[in-house]
């Protein structure tokens, strides 16, 4: 790889580039730790890793403003961290502790954070879309300038809720950015067995929604596209659709024999992995070197082990609290 890597061009500041790399690396290492914690039984339930897709969340989240909302899926650890939920709170959540961002009630698939308008952590495929549309409707009616960022996989586009949500957002010209993370598989179902039209931007355009196909393995391309999307939505031009092409390096969740794709296919994509390629470019540009890399790795490792200790030390929600949060408590 490295030898062929082209240096960064244009006016991308070294610090910014390095920061993007750090963010991706942080997600990658966090997910690796989650896998470890899952195999040793600290994390339970379903666990969907973002490994291989880090450039998508990292590039997109750069354009998410404080007042914006993010509506994500069950594969949302990365988005949660990038949105600014503390690693402690995320890890503690997966450990099922009171200190978790959902107080141990949500787990890996249901990370929530009110302060950053992180509205899940949704595990019904497609179900987050109408919610994002509604948040955007509120933003438009209140003229708050907020944008709703709706993250979903390409498999979700077959659901009726995609169709209804796109139409509603377009009809009402709502500030929603639909971020389709196209990793080409929905569990074991390849895109071409899921959609009669595999040109996803064409599907989006059939609702008169502006759409772009983006190399989601390239964090800079993703960041630039998300910026265009944000400007479009924020300036009242209505919804925007991003097809972010990426690839899932690991199993769909922790139970998955991966009979639906070859090891070679996975290998090939790993060679084009977002961290690997970007690291090479940063090196070729003299922005990253082994020393800097080790420093980054060390910082992140430290943060992660602190998060694990924090989660370990967390308090299990007492059973006496079971009945809380079914209905709001009088303030």
């Amino acid at each position, binding site marked *: 790889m490295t030898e062929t890597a082209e240096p960064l061009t244009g006016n991308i500041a070294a610090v910014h580039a390095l920061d993007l790399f750090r963010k991706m690396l942080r997600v990658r290492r966090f997910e690796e730790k989650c896998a470890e914690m899952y195999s040793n039984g600290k994390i339970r339930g379903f666990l969907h890793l973002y490994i291989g897709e880090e450039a998508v969340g990292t590039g997109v989240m750069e354009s998410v403003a404080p007042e914006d909302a993010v509506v994500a899926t069950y594969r949302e650890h990365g988005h949660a961290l990038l949105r600014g939920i503390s690693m402690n709170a995320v890890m503690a959540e997966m450990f099922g502790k009171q200190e978790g961002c959902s107080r141990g009630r949500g787990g890996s698939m249901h990370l929530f954070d009110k302060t950053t308008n992180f509205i899940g952590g949704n595990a019904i495929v497609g179900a987050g879309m109408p*919610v994002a549309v509604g948040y955007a409707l509120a933003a438009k009616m209140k003229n708050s300038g907020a944008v709703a960022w709706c993250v979903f996989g390409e498999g979700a586009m077959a659901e009726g809720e995609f169709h209804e949500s796109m139409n509603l957002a377009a009809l009402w010209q709502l500030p929603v950015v639909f971020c389709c993370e196209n990793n080409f598989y929905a569990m074991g179902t390849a895109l071409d067995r899921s959609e009669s039209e595999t040109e996803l931007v064409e599907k989006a355009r059939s609702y008169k929604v502006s759409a772009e196909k983006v190399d989601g393995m390239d964090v800079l391309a993703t960041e630039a596209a998300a910026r265009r999307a944000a400007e479009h939505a924020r300036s009242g031009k209505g919804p925007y659709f991003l097809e972010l092409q990426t690839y899932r390096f690991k199993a769909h969740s922790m139970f998955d024999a991966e009979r639906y794709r070859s090891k070679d296919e996975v290998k090939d994509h790993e060679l084009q992995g977002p961290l690997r390629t970007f690291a090479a470019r940063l090196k070729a540009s003299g922005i990253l070197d082994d020393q800097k890399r080790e420093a980054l790795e060390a910082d992140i490792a430290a943060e992660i082990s602190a998060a694990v200790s924090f989660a370990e030390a967390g308090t299990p929600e007492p059973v006496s609290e079971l009945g809380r949060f079914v209905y709001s408590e009088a303030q």
Partner: protein
Amino acid sequence: MSSQVPAGMREISYREAAREGLREALTKDDRVFLMGEDVGRYGGSYAVSLGFLEEFGPDRIRDTPLSESAFVGAGVGAAIGGMRPIVEVMTVNFSLLASDQIINTAATYLHMSGGQINVPLVIRMATGGGLQLAAQHSHSLENLYAHIPGLKVLTPATVEDVRGMLATALADPDPVLIFEHILLYNRKGLLPEQAGAVDIDHARIRREGTQVSLITYGGSLWKCLEAAERLAGEGIDAEVLDLRTLRPLDDEAILATVRKTRRVVIVDEGWRSGGISAEIMARIHEQAFYELDVPMERVCAAEVPIPYAKQLEDAALPQVEDIVAAAQKVVNGNG
């Protein structure tokens, strides 16, 4: 309804009362808006929001496409986003298309988020049969939602409740479903001049009685009151309890009337098996077992998709005669 209107009261139809409640909500709080199929230009499939589009404008009276799941889900998102949406689903039958948003999203967010994300959403639906609309427009499925933790389920039977429950529902921080029985819209009733928000935590005795408790809600309330009149003619003194809210149920009120009469008939328009009447029967059994002299009776819909033909629909739905017979049975030990 007598033409004598007592002082301080006025006569009004259920439809008009629902409209007043909506108008008041839209006027008082600019976070409130109404969204659903044909609520605007058409005026509402049951004409409840007739004229609102002109009065409040298209931004707050939103005609939606035929997309139940999306516009109900959009209500969830808008509620989280700081608005106070009132979503109208034409009938509970169609709400199944949105049941995922209602049950898996609206009802779970508060809990899944550890108390952070509440959903102050109000959903109105028409329910019930009696207009020969057949098996895709006539069912009473509110009990399906009454089973779901995280939801509140209101079933206004009176003009005061249909007008006032909306305000209370809008003040609630959590999702509230309001079911309006299609046969009630044209029904007239008396409304206090000072009508406003009403409490939704308590069932109400609509008729005092001593010998048998008729426990019901919604459209069936009026059948029970008529049955009570007939029973009075036979010297049977029936009490009629209007549940008003199906989730949470007012156990205290239910047990109070049971302890008073020791004889119970439960009436609802849903199918018998697994209907709300079964839950009420179970609660009474659990909490007042030793107070009952005879088994309780249920009067529910026959277990068939509601048919079109008049005589079949009438036979499928609970009728006054059925309630009278059930009451006679629990009181006299014969039907």
